[in-house]
């Protein structure tokens, strides 16, 4: 297992290099002169040339890339043009809010997705099963940003029981207030993942429930509860673990839209502000951080899969 983990981590290196190259390339191709953006439209030709030289913009593309990569690896992710601050600490500070929202959503998605999937599978074609499958279809078809707005309208504007936006009230501190702010964004983000987890759990449970060892367990006189939870669920959950892990990665992406709807102070809203202000170091850093986290989450999923499924031998 240790060998597998080591090899799997090694395969991460080319992927991360590829991601860093792509991020650098995309923003390198962006029209507009970073020196002009920093110094403003009134800057003279000499000061622009000096700044271009200082920033290394007069060097060949690959020299610029490797210099940038070297700096990134040493923790120097550049300076935000708009906010006049170091990019990395800024990103890490905002990333905490993103992680908080993402993990809360993942928790909610598992909390609802797995039980719904189990009930649907054990009562196949019942009213509950059909209702949950309709809910899955609706969840798949609903834009996450629209769902967020609907929840805001219902729970904040009409019922007035939850805050419309933000992560914390300006005049309040403490967990109860933070939790109240978390409810709507977390539910909004969780719905998409929950329907996928429910669908996967149902499908996996249906497959396992048809296996011979389940028939044997029933023949031995085991109760339905014991058959479902002791025998079927343990095996059915193996592919579900992968889906749950992958969903955490997808939530990181979907989080950007939810952050904008709820003015959540995470990395997504920071990145969007950066794009509007053409703050390239900030945008570059944000994309790199989210993409890297996504890849690392996928790595953890792969390793977890190797742990939970003893039938798999990785070579």
């Amino acid at each position, binding site marked *: 297992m240790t060998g597998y983990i080591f090899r799997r981590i090694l395969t991460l290196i*080319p*992927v991360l290099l*590829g*991601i860093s190259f*792509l*991020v650098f390339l*995309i*923003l390198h*191709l*962006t*029209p507009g002169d970073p020196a002009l953006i920093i110094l403003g439209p009134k800057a003279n030709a000499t000061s622009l040339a000096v700044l271009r030289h200082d920033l290394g913009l007069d060097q060949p593309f690959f020299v610029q890339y490797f210099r940038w990569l070297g700096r990134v690896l040493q923790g120097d992710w550049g300076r935000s043009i708009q906010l006049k601050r170091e990019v990395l600490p800024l990103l890490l500070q905002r990333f905490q809010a993103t992680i908080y929202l993402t993990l809360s959503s993942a928790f909610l998605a598992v909390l609802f997705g797995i039980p719904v999937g189990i009930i649907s599978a054990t009562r196949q074609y019942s009213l509950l099963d059909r209702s949950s499958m309709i809910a899955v*279809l*609706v969840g*798949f*078809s*609903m*834009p*996450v*940003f*629209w769902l967020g*707005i*609907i929840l*805001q*309208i219902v729970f904040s*504007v009409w019922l007035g029981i939850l805050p*419309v936006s933000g992560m914390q009230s300006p005049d309040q501190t403490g967990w109860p207030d933070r939790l109240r702010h978390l409810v709507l964004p977390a539910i909004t983000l969780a719905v*998409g993942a929950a329907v*996928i987890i429910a669908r996967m759990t149902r*499908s996996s449970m*249906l497959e396992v429930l048809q296996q011979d060892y389940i028939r044997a367990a029933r023949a031995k006189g085991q109760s339905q509860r014991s058959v479902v939870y002791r025998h079927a669920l343990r095996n059915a959950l193996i592919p579900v673990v992968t889906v749950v892990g*992958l*969903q955490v*990665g*997808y939530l*990181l*992406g*979907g989080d*950007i*839209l939810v952050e*904008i*709807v709820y003015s959540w102070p995470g990395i997504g809203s920071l*990145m*969007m502000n950066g*794009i*509007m202000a053409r703050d390239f170091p900030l*945008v570059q850093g944000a*994309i790199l951080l*989210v*993409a890297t986290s*996504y*890849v690392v989450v*996928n790595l953890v999923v792969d390793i977890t899969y190797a742990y939970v499924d003893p039938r798999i031998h990785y070579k």
Partner: protein
Amino acid sequence: MERLQGLEDVGSADKDRPAGGIAGVAKASQTVNQSLLRETWRRLRKDKFALLGGAWLLLIILVSLLAPLLAPQDPLAIDLRLRLQPLGTPGHILGTDDLGRDILSRLLWGGRISLLVGFSAVFIAMTIGTLIGLLTGFLGGWMDNGVMRLIDILMAFPAILLAIAIVAALGPGLEHAMLAVAIVGIPYYARIARGSVLALREREFVVASQALGASQWRIISVHLFPNSLPPLIIAATMDVGWMIMFAAGLSFLGLGAQPPTPEWGIMLSEGHKYIRIAPHASIVPGLAIFLVVLALNLLGDGLRDALDPRLRR
């Protein structure tokens, strides 16, 4: 990208192995394609939900195409005296937005844009992706390895993040958003096409065609491409909805269509600022996106089951 699972394994068109010599085997793949179409339509007709989705989609397409005739007002006409009028206002049945523009008219015109973006993005992604998948899958070797590693890297990005990065580079705008959404979709189709080709290239009718001296281009265009189509069609049907939603998301973020274009994503974004006094301004365009995507998903689900009943569950 969270889309259909396991499409790479969807069976190819010709499941039966025809007899009749090498030439017969090569020709038979086309006949089997026609019977597959008939069989697919027979199964699809029995799926009420798929038919409902298809009929609903047709209606939306028709209404969007007829927007110039059906829209009661000019979608861009501003009337500040009638700002944020509620649903059911005389002359503005779906109310007005923050500039007093008629929401129904904007919705109808917006349907044209959203559908065009969705279908165009899928067409671009499917054409380029399929071409890449067919070539790499059939030719193999260093080209296959290199392109697949690049695709792995593209797929290592969350889809929305990659699209945002592309639009950030190209600059905000509807065409750029459409292109970004299409680029994000390319690896998906490339993988499906490649998966099909890998399964097909050892089949008898392909080997027979090679033995008869057919050129690589002929094998790809006459045998591999038509037989790779079923999983690609299923993916594309479900993808149109996904891409409409995706492009609307980019517009919602301010990266896609720009004001005053009547596009559903930007209508949602503009309406969002007024949820306290005019919630309908954001509910209505979102509902339109939802209903189109739902119709496409119903049709896509039905098509998938009709093309390969093994996937039903």
